[in-house]
């Protein structure tokens, strides 16, 4: 069932729809990545960083109290929220930062939505002594102000992007413009499984440690594989990271997109469920677009899922029927976030809360004999203000 890769294609999806000026850099990146993958020194270095810096392996938590509200199904959380910097993003970033050194480039640039990938990139750049510039939509710098401060503390330059819709999509455009101008000494450290080949393959491979670990842990600690695996999908990196290990198993796979106010309102970020086939940011995949191919702005309470595109491998997995994709509204996600916090003492990121909400619905179908392994992709510290506003909790000066 694994997607066949020919010239970076997943079936009809993927490819390299970018200016000619970038092709040489993409070729070099592909060659260096393929060589690094086979290089024991590179792999040892990355494994050591994963263990001693990130804190891998991350545990699986059996969420017993939460499972009672999810129809009795066993809920197992793969705790990527416990990684250094607070999400799965660090897995890919460390891999690409090591590659940057290998290519003798001194500068990394990155896009960020919620700020998690930006924080992870700033962290790796600090660790390895690289210059770091992060592009972030101006809208997102406001709703994720805490992460902007974190990136600056880590020594990164954060550039608010004021063009287009001023969110993640425009941050990627601006990063691409920087890259095409400075490609000689700069690596574009793309944060998800989207973009031109080799990014979708390479970013997936750096994240597959999530699923590989989880599969081993399931067999060692529970003696069997889960009934289903669930993850939230924006660009789709955490989902691919956990799905890949289970793709040839008899395990159902579920991806939950951001439904915003509801697909029917048009105000959502559910690219696979509510979009159509198109080309955005260098790859053919599903896109939120109008009848003439203009990108439509996405809407989600979750900055990390607020993106009108999705990785091409997900497009392939949707059309092949291997993964079930559906959407979760803002309200459903926020309710699930609060419920998990109160029953398990785990405050997840709003992105992750979409997978939690989806699993509550799925749990009702599967019933108490089954189990759902959820990729608990990030922690919710960055979302405390957004959540407090949503639930009308007093914050800061307002506290009487």
């Amino acid at each position, binding site marked *: 069932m694994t997607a066949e890769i020919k010239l970076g294609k997943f079936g009809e999806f993927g490819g390299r729809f970018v200016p000619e*000026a970038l092709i*040489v850099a993409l070729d070099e990146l592909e060659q260096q990545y393929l060589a690094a993958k086979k290089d024991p020194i590179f792999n040892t270095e990355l494994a050591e960083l994963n263990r001693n810096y990130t804190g891998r392996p991350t545990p699986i938590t059996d969420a017993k109290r939460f499972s009672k509200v999810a129809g009795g199904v066993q809920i197992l959380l793969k705790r990527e929220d416990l990684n250094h910097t607070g999400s799965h993003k660090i897995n890919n970033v460390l891999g690409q930062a090591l590659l940057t050194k290998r290519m003798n480039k001194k500068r990394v640039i990155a896009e960020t939505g919620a700020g998690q990938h930006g924080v992870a990139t700033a962290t790796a750049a600090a660790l390895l002594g690289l210059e770091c510039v992060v592009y972030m939509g101006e809208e997102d710098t406001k709703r994720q102000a805490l992460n902007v401060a974190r990136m600056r503390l880590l020594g990164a330059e954060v550039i608010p992007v004021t*063009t287009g819709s001023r969110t993640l999509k425009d941050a990627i455009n601006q990063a691409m413009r920087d890259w095409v101008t400075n*490609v000689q000494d700069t690596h574009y450290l793309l944060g998800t499984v989207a973009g031109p080949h080799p990014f979708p393959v390479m970013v997936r491979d750096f994240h597959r440690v999530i699923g590989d670990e989880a599969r081993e842990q399931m067999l060692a600690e529970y003696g069997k594989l889960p009934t289903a695996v669930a993850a939230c999908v924006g660009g789709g990196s955490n989902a691919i990271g956990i799905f890949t290990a289970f793709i040839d198993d008899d395990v159902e796979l579920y991806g939950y997109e951001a439904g915003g106010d509801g697909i029917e309102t048009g105000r959502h970020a559910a690219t696979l469920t509510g979009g159509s086939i*198109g*080309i955005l940011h260098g790859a053919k995949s599903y896109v939120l677009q109008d009848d003439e191919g203009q990108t439509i702005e996405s809407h989600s309470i979750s900055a990390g899922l607020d993106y009108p595109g999705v990785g091409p491998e997900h497009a392939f997995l949707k059309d092949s029927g291997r993964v079930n994709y559906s959407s979760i509204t803002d309200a459903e996600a926020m309710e699930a976030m609060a419920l998990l916090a109160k029953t398990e003492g785990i405050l997840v990121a709003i992105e992750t809360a979409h997978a939690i909400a989806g699993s509550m619905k799925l749990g009702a179908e599967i019933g108490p004999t089954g189990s759902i392994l959820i990729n608990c992709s990030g922690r919710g510290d960055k979302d405390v203000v957004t959540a407090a506003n949503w639930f009308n909790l007093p914050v800061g000066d307002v506290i009487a």
Partner: protein
Amino acid sequence: MKTVSQVFSEAKNQNHLALIAYLPAGYPNNELSHKLIDTLIGNGVDLIEVGFPYSDPLMDGPIIQAAVKDALSKGTRAKDVFKAIDHAQQAGAAAVVMSYFNPIFKYGFNDFAKALASAGGAGVITPDLIPDEATEWIKQVNMNKLDNIFLVAPSSTDERIRMVAENSTGFIYAASLMGVTGVKSAQIETVKNLVARIRKFTNKPIAVGLGVNTPDQVMEIAKFADGVIVGSAFIKAVSEASNDSDAVDVVARLASALSAATGKIG
């Protein structure tokens, strides 16, 4: 209607560079953009490049980004692109579309090529499409007797230059620098070297674009290329004009100054 090849052979016979001007459709509105096209042609522009405004123009700098955003906010659609093409070819110039690939993909390869051909268009420039990804599209372009113009960049290897040159018809677009439109100035030595590398593989005409905005640059480029492409400079002039007739005047002055610099010496 005029073909791209005719434009370049006429320019060659008259011993000057073909002058190519870019304007996005619908900017600053349909009526004025048609008047600007007339003005460009009347002041020495040989080929009009009509931009298909797109929401995510990642090869464009701030000047063109702002112009296409303005055009889109005024409701510019594919039909306006084809009307501008029709207007330019009726006014006596050859006209090509400059479009990012998704609007073409969404329109349908066959439908887009047909609509462009029936508007009298001569070809298509696709800044985010490499020939490696264009097999199906190239078929439709050829079937409708249009030219397919691909780009080469200073970073392109000889192998890629040969492949791009083989797949391009009409002319080859040589990017004068690594970067986006309208930000940095063309790097003459870099692009001179690039043009020489392209000539090793093809006799097709070569036009230089990105960062060209002054007659002095055009004079330098006339020493080694066959055409020159100017975009952001015209748009900047339009965006700074105080009214419509001022916009027409500044565009006329700029076009005629650039045109006067296209002559090849000796």
